[in-house]
């Protein structure tokens, strides 16, 4: 029997071009005669724009044009595309260049078009803008208070929405009756997504055909086409969006930004191609930030450790404008996850979206779900402490028992499948949990502070059924489509609407097709990222490409296999019932010599010399796939840390991750997703965090100050797995792109607080920098030592 390609950790098919420098990302693409765009950006977080004098800039070498917000005739403002129902949502206008007022540092005020980047930046520096500075507000809870500076005239009290879909009275009753209630104010600090490739966009307009081509760093070129068409007024079939090689996104390349609209508009105005690429400093100012919640959280429990309810009031910072999907993040993707993997019967969430003078926020890896998992896991440790029970034991006591096909939870979701206890015990076994607790005690006797954190999680991904998308106000569908096209010589082109940008989908998706149809993986090309070449799709985010696009491809492949079987039977003059299939070859039962390979069949289908009655020629199938439910991967992560009480430094000694994403198509790629996600989540706990000053100036504006995780901060990770297929997915797979980020932040945070417990430290705002940890130790000791 041959080795099955599904489940094999084969080398990635995208790598040869990436390891040799031959891949072309947006900024690598050159067009003759291209102009470079530089953006004049507000240096103030909140300011009236009094006047703009571009005369000096216009006179400079190489400068072709300077435009301000008032010049952008025919360019509509950027839309918000997730309109949460029943939340009194306000969607303030978001012009591509600020008009009258700038609302965050980096808000675009004017653009300069010049012959090269250096000239464009020189001229942008020479544009003189007179501002009248206004008071600014950054903290979302402060911004929601009476008397806070008003950011948009049409957003009263800066409240963009209030979402509270659960029964408050029922929740209150649970809390009143509970033995134990623990409370904490949790700060989910702002994070900078920091895809290593900065954003870039280049537009070319052909006036003769009225066609616009936009190359841009996008996770969802079809959504970009939709929005660019809407803001420029061009017909959608005259807009082509190409996402070439894309260097990571983590959510930050989902939104359609002013910059992409501006290069498109400028290319249309000037009739020459226009390119813009952000610098990292610009990226930190203008590309969306993640998280930014102030949460007031309570958990109710019985004195023997049964969790009875969770409730939270969340102030979610939206920044100066509502980004494309922003309202959906702290609501649908957050509050619906308050049950986690536990038997919690009562949940309540009030999420208040607040305009601030920060950079707009939007989806960042995990998007709402890490913020939910963190609060659950933090509060469980608080409950454990309060009732004097081991935190692992509290979790064990509350885990939902194994289920194979559907489990309804109090937050309104139906989980697809799960066996949380098995993953949980496996992780505890790998960590040697009991033994560690003994070591911890003996270390404490020597004045060493070791700690352990355990997180059980489940998350909702593979977004999602379109009907649900509509019900929750998402202004799009959440299906995917794919075409499997076999050439006459038996080579495969798989065209997908999703747009992977580092996930390895060209490999995993090819493995699905290879497994279904018997083609060699090397004979399958997965084609994506071009709205003209590929069928419609909603994009790569929410850990959805493998589950949703993968399902579309599996089903298209299955349809082709059926056609091939019928044609093979016809060609071999056998009954279809007698046809057997193995490894890409059809044979007649009892006559093993008589075979037709899938390639033979493909050729005959193209030639169409001898087709069965009623069968159309060609060998190609398309499939739209709208999932019937989300998928719910799960697992347990454990961290072991040591805190240096002299300095507050944290050493991460071990990290164990047991994840279940259903059957793994390519275990190496799955592991890579977990490694990367885990580091991103740990970095939130330990070192990453945006800092603004009181005027809204970004103090973490470069990698000198914003702490990106580095290789020497981490041990090798210890990974384990369990396999629980999704019952509703054609090949059982779940997503895995966000699990690491979702699980790891509370895991490491709780480990550190566990280590600090003997010192009396109960809470520290993230990130847990050495200075904050040290200060917390001093404060707990009453300032002395």
């Amino acid at each position, binding site marked *: 029997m041959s080795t099955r390609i599904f489940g094999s*950790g084969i*080398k*990635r098919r*995208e*790598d*040869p*071009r*990436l*390891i*040799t*420098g*031959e*891949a*072309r*990302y947006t*900024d*690598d693409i*050159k067009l003759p005669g291209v102009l470079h765009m530089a953006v004049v950006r507000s240096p103030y977080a909140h300011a009236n724009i009094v006047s703009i004098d571009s005369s000096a800039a216009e006179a400079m070498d190489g400068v072709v044009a300077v435009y301000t917000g008032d010049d952008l005739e025919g360019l509509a403002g950027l839309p918000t595309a997730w309109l949460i129902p029943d939340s009194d949502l306000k969607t303030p206008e978001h012009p591509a260049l600020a008009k009258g007022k700038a609302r965050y540092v980096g808000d675009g005020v004017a653009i300069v078009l010049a012959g*090269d*980047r*250096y000239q464009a930046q020189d001229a942008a520096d020479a544009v003189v803008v007179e501002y009248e500075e206004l008071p600014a507000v950054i903290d979302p809870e402060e911004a929601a208070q009476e008397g806070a500076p008003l950011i948009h005239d049409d957003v009263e009290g800066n409240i963009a929405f209030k979402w509270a879909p659960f029964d408050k009275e029922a929740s209150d009753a649970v809390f009143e009756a509970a033995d134990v209630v623990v409370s904490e104010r949790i700060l989910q600090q702002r994070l900078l997504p*920091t*895809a*290593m*490739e*900065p954003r870039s966009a280049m537009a070319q307009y052909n006036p003769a055909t009225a066609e616009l081509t936009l190359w841009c760093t996008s996770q969802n070129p079809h959504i970009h086409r939709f929005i660019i068409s809407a803001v420029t007024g061009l017909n959608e079939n005259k807009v082509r969006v190409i996402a070439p*090689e*894309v*260097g*990571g996104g*983590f959510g930050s390349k989902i939104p359609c930004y002013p910059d992409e609209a501006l290069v498109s508009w400028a290319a249309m105005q000037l009739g020459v191609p226009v390119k813009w690429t952000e*610098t*990292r*400093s610009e990226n930190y100012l203008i590309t969306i930030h993640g998280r930014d919640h102030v949460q007031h959280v309570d958990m109710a429990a019985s004195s023997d450790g049964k969790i009875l309810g969770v409730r939270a009031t969340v102030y979610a910072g939206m920044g100066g404008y509502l980004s494309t999907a922003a309202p959906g993040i702290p609501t649908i993707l957050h509050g619906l996850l308050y049950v986690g993997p536990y038997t919690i019967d009562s949940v309540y969430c009030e999420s208040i979206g607040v305009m601030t003078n920060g950079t707009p926020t939007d989806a960042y890896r995990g998007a709402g779900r890490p913020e939910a998992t963190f609060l659950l896991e933090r509060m469980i440790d608080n409950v454990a402490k309060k009732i004097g029970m081991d935190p692992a034991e509290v979790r064990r006591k509350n885990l939902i028992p194994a289920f194979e096909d559907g489990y309804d939870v109090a937050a309104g979701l139906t989980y697809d499948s799960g066996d949380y206890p098995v993953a949980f015990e496996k992780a505890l076994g790998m960590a040697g949990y009991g033994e560690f607790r003994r070591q911890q005690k003996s270390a404490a006797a020597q004045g060493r502070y070791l700690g352990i954190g355990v997180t059980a999680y489940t998350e909702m991904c593979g977004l999602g059924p379109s009907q649900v998308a509509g019900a929750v106000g998402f202004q799009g569908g959440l299906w995917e489509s794919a075409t499997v096209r076999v050439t006459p010589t038996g080579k495969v082109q798989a065209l997908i609407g999703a747009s992977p*940008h*580092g*996930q*390895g989908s060209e490999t995993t998706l090819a493995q699905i097709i290879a497994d279904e149809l018997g083609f060699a993986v090397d004979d399958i090309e997965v084609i994506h990222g071009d709205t003209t070449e590929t069928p419609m799709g909603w994009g790569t985010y929410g850990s959805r490409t493998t589950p949703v696009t993968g399902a579309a491809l599996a089903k298209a492949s299955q349809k082709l296999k059926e056609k091939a079987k019928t044609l093979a039977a016809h060609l071999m003059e056998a009954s279809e019932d007698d046809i057997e299939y193995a490894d890409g070859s059809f044979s007649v039962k009892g006559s093993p010599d008589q075979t037709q390979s899938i390639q033979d069949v493909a050729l005959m289908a193209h030639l169409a010399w001898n087709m069965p009655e009623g069968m159309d020629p060609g060998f190609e199938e398309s499939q739209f796939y709208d999932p019937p439910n989300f998928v719910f991967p799960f697992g347990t992560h454990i961290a072991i840390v040591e805190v240096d009480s002299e300095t507050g430094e944290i050493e991460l000694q071990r990290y164990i991750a047991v994840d279940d994403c259903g059957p793994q198509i390519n275990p*190496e*790629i799955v*592991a*890579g997703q*977990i*490694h*990367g*996600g*885990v*580091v*991103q989540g740990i970095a939130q706990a330990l070192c990453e965090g945006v800092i603004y000053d009181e005027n809204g100036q970004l103090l973490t504006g*470069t*990698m*000198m100050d914003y702490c*990106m995780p*580095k*290789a*020497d901060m*981490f041990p*090798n*990770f210890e990974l384990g797995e369990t396999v629980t297929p999704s019952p509703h997915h054609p090949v059982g797979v779940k997503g895995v792109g966000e699990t*690491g980020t979702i699980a790891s932040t509370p895991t490491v945070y709780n480990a550190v607080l566990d280590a600090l417990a003997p010192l009396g430290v109960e809470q520290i705002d993230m990130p847990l920098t050495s200075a904050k940890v040290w200060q917390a130790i001093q404060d707990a000791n009453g300032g002395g030592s």
Partner: protein
Amino acid sequence: MQVAITVNGVVHERDVDPRTLLVHFLREELDLTGTKIGCDTSQCGACTVQLDGKVLKSCTLLAVQADGAEVTTIEGLAENGEHHPMQTAFWENHGLQCGYCTPGMIMASAAFVRDNPGASEGEIRHYLEGNICRCTGYHNIVKAVKQVADAAAGA
């Protein structure tokens, strides 16, 4: 100003504005776009090349400073059409995802292992402080570099 810079074995003579950074010279003048730009502050290492065999962040050197020097970029690392062992190791060990940091990672790691065959995992992790990756969590990058370091020590 007139410069002559040898890149991947070929001498390129150009008249450049003195403020041209070497990375822009490579990317814009020579269209060698394998070398990337990921930050403004010499932190991320996406622009790493080798200059006269030494690891360099090409965003932190003027092209005029490289006049007369020999530069190797990711496009010039393979020899006789064969991947450099570090390229092979990154591929075999899944040491990359989006690929953007990869050219710099490979250029830096190749020089490191050349100078430090048999390097330990800890030394590799410490050395990589000058190269930032957002996708891989470094786990498989370290594995790839270790594989080459071990092979170099055994040879």
